[in-house]
């Protein structure tokens, strides 16, 4: 009779033990699979939430002599984890003239006058992504937005266009108001309007009035700010894929050479992440604590039970040894027995944990957050089963090994 047959007879005839062990393994593995599933699902949900948060940072390079150049921007965009969704910005104040050098009419009936016939020139690589358009209610009513390939172009306010009789296709001239005099001719490619009134209208500088604002491109900005024929800019806004990586990415960026990063102001925009973080991490913490606790309890319980049961089999082991059955053969019998019970228990735990996760989802998780859908992940289940089998195997070998250390002589006194 070989050890497999003996193991089979043991497990089928010691029914109570078999059922008990089966139940214990089933319950523990179900608990673990459920916890792992909640963990995986909440991690996935967290990652999705984080990605949807659009966190990032802004580099303010206004103090740098020549701003941020294209090469640096390219290097920043090459850092892993930075999305293609970026904007570059520059600001200046310019005096507006027509091609005949006549000063154009600006709004000056409200606000504080500092410069006349002048306004704020907002230069973007993508005007559509500018906060004036995304948050402050600006709307393009005709023409096209500014995109990176467009150079020496402008978007003007509806009212400014009307007052100066300007249309799409017309040219105007922008002149610097401070320092060296630089002027640049730009073509109007679009007309915008504001859908909301600025509440600061009465006490702001007239150049800040919406009606006097012009949008232009980065090459125009570079010319006016730095007197250069490139697209150097003052600000860069970058979005990261995962807010968790934000600090890491910023420090990677600071390793890029050729920029005096200390002179730049880097502002993180992750307040929305910081706000949701706590609720995201709360569940994760509970679950990972539960996993550790259940794991430890399982290990202790399994080792104790197996040890106790094996101790009761000293007598049987002694008999086997006395009739010449090898120790290895006895160890294999015990391993086979435990596997006969454990493997079906682990397999069955897939069913029970699937049912349990559904119950947990509807009864528990939905009261904490509704952004999570939990299902048993096969990988989690395989992981729990695999680790479980290894633990059981080790526990079996340890407990049986102690027993086989009995000297054959002791068989008489058992």
């Amino acid at each position, binding site marked *: 009779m070989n050890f497999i047959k003996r193991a089979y*007879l043991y497990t089928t005839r010691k029914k109570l033990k078999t059922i008990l062990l089966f139940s214990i393994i089933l319950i523990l593995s179900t608990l673990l699979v459920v916890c792992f599933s909640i963990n995986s699902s909440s991690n996935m949900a967290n990652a999705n939430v984080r990605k949807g948060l659009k966190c990032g940072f802004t580099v303010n390079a206004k103090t740098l002599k020549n701003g941020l150049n294209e090469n640096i921007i390219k290097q920043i965009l090459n850092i892993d984890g930075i999305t293609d969704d970026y904007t570059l910005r520059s600001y200046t104040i310019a005096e507006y003239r027509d091609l005949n050098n006549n000063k154009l009419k600006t709004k000056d009936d409200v606000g504080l006058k500092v410069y006349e016939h002048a306004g704020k020139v907002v230069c973007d690589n993508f005007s559509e992504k500018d906060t004036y358009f995304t948050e402050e209610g600006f709307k393009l009513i005709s023409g096209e937005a500014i995109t990176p390939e467009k150079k020496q172009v402008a978007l003007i306010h509806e009212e400014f266009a009307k007052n100066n009789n300007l249309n799409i296709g017309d040219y105007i001239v922008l002149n610097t108001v401070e320092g060296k005099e630089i002027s640049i001719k730009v073509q109007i490619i679009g007309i915008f309007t504001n859908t909301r009134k600025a509440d600061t209208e009465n006490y702001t500088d007239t150049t800040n009035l919406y009606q006097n604002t012009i949008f232009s491109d980065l090459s125009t900005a570079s010319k006016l700010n730095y007197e250069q024929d490139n697209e150097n800019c003052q600000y860069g806004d970058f979005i990261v894929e995962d807010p968790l990586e934000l600090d890491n990415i910023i420090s990677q960026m600071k390793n890029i050479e050729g920029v005096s990063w200390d002179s730049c102001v880097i502002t993180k925009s992750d307040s929305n992440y910081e706000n949701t973080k706590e609720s995201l991490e709360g569940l994760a913490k509970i679950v990972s604590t539960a996993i550790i606790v259940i794991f430890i309890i399982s290990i202790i319980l399994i080792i104790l039970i197996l040890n106790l049961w094996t101790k009761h089999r000293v007598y049987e082991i002694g008999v*086997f040894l006395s009739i010449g059955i090898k120790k290895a053969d006895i160890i294999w019998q015990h391993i086979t027995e435990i596997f006969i019970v454990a493997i079906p228990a682990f397999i069955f735990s897939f069913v029970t944990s699937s049912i349990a996760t559904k119950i947990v989802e509807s009864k528990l998780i939905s009261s904490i957050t509704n952004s999570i859908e939990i299902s048993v992940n096969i990988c989690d289940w395989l992981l729990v089963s695999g680790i479980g089998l290894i633990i059981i195997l080790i526990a079996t070998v340890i407990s049986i090994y102690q027993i086989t250390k009995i000297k*054959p002589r002791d068989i008489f006194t058992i």
Partner: protein
Amino acid sequence: MSILEIKNLKYEYSRGNPVFKNINVNLDEGKVYAILGYSGSGKTTFLSLLGGLDTPTEGEILFKGENIANYGLAKHRKDNVSFIFQSYNLIDYLTPMENVSIASKLPPKPILEKVGLTNEEIKRNVLKLSGGQQQRVAIARALASEAPILLADEPTGNLDEETAEGIMSILKDCSHKMNKCVVIVTHSKDLAKQTDVVFRLKKGELQVERNK
């Protein structure tokens, strides 16, 4: 040549306190030996040395002329000897048939019938057999291994007189009909009378009490 030759055997659990020493004796096939002695006189210890369950402090045990220490104690236990214990030592989750099968490839049924178990009894749970029946199963298991030496440590210690008689006659048959060397440790002088040779362990020495 004797199947077992015991030469100058000495055993001590602690240094300077031998349980016995200077034992020189030869055991033959086809004979039943009894070892008498008070409790604690070293009978079990002696039997365990013969069975290769432990190594002597001094001296040697030869099986068919070869020192069992060289032959290998585990191999000696497996091939050459079978044990029968006072407490039967049956495996409780196996039937008598299966208990006999774990020791050998021989068909268990004829052996169990030989020791007097019925067709029904050999398939019963061993714990539901009487003490005498359980010891018969243990003897059947010992016989199944086909070892030429049978070592029995108080095999009838838990049995009433009549049943003990039955077990004794089976053991005698094993020896005389199957040509085995049977060594029985016992308290009972009555049972010892039925054996061929009677030894007594006394004050650390093995004395021959009777050799018919």
